């Protein structure tokens, strides 16, 4: 036989894969290209310009929504990562105890329910609380985001913990380290890549959220995604493309770092 028979090959699969990659990236690339359009259409090309980036930058609504997004996502990411780290420490490296299965199920519960249902539930619940307390600040969004970020932060931290045995902590205890000292000097440094991965995952998930934010927000509390959703009803200019492009860049940056952190973990 002339050529070697490749047992892995399946006819047409490579072609379909290429079509998929092309189809996945064509719309995104188009979106980014038209962000640089000099004209005010998202379909007719009129030369390169940065005017839509300037316009977005000078649009107070966009700037306010961006700041609000960053505030909510930072708080949600940090808080959810802290409580998820604690929960991960409490649910790994132990023999099964009563309630362990319940904890797993409970922590992952936000992943099982469709977002729209959680959104509706929070709308109902928070509208009651708003009436009772009179408070209608960003706190509601922060709590809501924290809750649905917990399972995402929990996953990589738990995965990391499960690959660490207790030998080093036991050694630390033998050397008279207090539990807190053992955690700070031994567990935490080893766990750090997992915590960082969880933090970034939670941040991206929170930053991307549309549905829950759309239902929970009070008037004038648009985040960047809900602001953009609101704009689709109107005449769309490349300003939306410009905002999307910046948003995309931030996401890609975080995902890239995350990807390499979790890859490294696999190779260890």
């Amino acid at each position, binding site marked *: 036989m002339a050529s070697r028979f490749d*047992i*892995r090959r*399946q006819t047409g*699969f*490579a072609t*379909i*894969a290429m079509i*998929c990659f092309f189809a996945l*990236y064509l*719309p*995104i690339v*188009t*979106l980014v290209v038209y962000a640089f359009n000099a004209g005010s259409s*998202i*379909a007719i090309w009129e030369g390169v310009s940065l005017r839509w980036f300037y316009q977005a930058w000078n649009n107070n609504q966009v700037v306010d929504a961006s700041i609000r997004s960053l505030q909510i996502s930072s708080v949600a990411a940090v*808080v*959810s990562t802290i*409580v998820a780290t*604690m*929960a991960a420490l*409490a649910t790994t490296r*132990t023999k099964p*105890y009563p*309630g362990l299965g319940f904890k797993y199920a*409970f*922590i992952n*519960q*936000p992943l*099982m*329910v*469709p977002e*729209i*249902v*959680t959104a*509706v*539930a*929070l709308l*109902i*619940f928070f509208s009651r609380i708003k009436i009772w307390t009179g408070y209608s600040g960003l706190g509601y969004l922060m*709590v*809501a985001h924290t*809750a*649905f970020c*917990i399972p995402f932060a929990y996953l990589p931290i738990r995965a990391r913990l499960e690959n660490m045995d207790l030998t080093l902590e036991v050694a630390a205890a033998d050397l008279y380290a207090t539990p807190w000292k053992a955690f700070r000097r031994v567990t935490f440094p080893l766990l750090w890549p997992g915590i960082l991965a969880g933090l970034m995952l939670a941040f*991206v998930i929170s*930053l*991307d959220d*549309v549905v829950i934010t759309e*239902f929970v927000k009070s008037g004038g509390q648009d985040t960047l*995604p809900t602001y*953009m*959703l609101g704009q*689709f009803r109107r005449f769309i200019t490349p300003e*939306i493309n410009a905002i*999307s492009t910046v*948003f*995309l860049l931030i*996401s*890609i940056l975080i995902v890239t770092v*995350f990807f390499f952190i979790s890859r490294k973990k696999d190779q260890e």
Partner: protein
Amino acid sequence: MASAEEVAKQAERREIRGRWLLSAPALIIILLAATGPLLIVVIYSFLTPGPYGDVVWKFSTDGWLSVVMQRDIFDDTLAFADAHLSIFWRSAKLSFLTTIFTLLFGFPTAYFIATRPARQRDIWLFLITIPFWTNLLIRTFAIQEVIRNEGIVNTVLIKLGIISQPIQMMFTDFALMVGMTYVYLPLMVLPLYASMEKIDFRLVEAGYDLYANRFQVLRRVIIPLVKPGIVAGSILVFIPALGAYVTPRVLGGTKNMMLGNLIELQFGQGRNWPLGSALSISLMAIVMVALLFYVRSAGRQGGTHG
């Protein structure tokens, strides 16, 4: 004096209590802002709608009744709520088709990645990971720019002289299906890849040694081996597709609503919170059934493969 056994028991109890305390903040936040409110939705579905939204605290089953039935405003007779049923049907149909299409495109893609040399694999995987974590809204917007009347597809087809008028794709079920297949494709590829990565190709070789052709090897060896990945990917696509809100809102407009939009409508212009609550619980019930199916099939897989 306590026996050694009792001391050990006490230490264990103390440790378990410590572990509960350590996980308490996470559990409380989720109870407060995820699980707890779901129970309130159940209560709300049995109340009477208030005049300006919200509810009146009076028991009523009208919310549930109007999920499938509607009362005629003139003679008070009951009839099937065609509008709701057609939206249920559209949601089920589109989610099912989306799952099938993502599987048809995702399977070869995942297989392609899994059979690359180790070095290249990371690059291809990374290319799937980026859209996976990119904002769904931005991806929906991106696909919208491609299929709209003045979008790339229509422009190219007109320039090539294949069509003279742009094809109206936006605000149709077709747009919804293309859009959902596009946004959920990475959700299918990643779990498929995870199970394909583990394929033992000696089994494939054995298949060829036994005179199977490529298609028989695919059907009889590869597909059974990656079945857990197929089930996981299908669940991962079907569930968010069924509850989709953003994609149908942007691509479907007001005429091509899905369940998610119907639910939102009840909390907005519809001002029928009990109906919205009942619809939400119905959606959740369907999702639970799908998850149960998944757990059972995953359990079966675990049983047969040891």
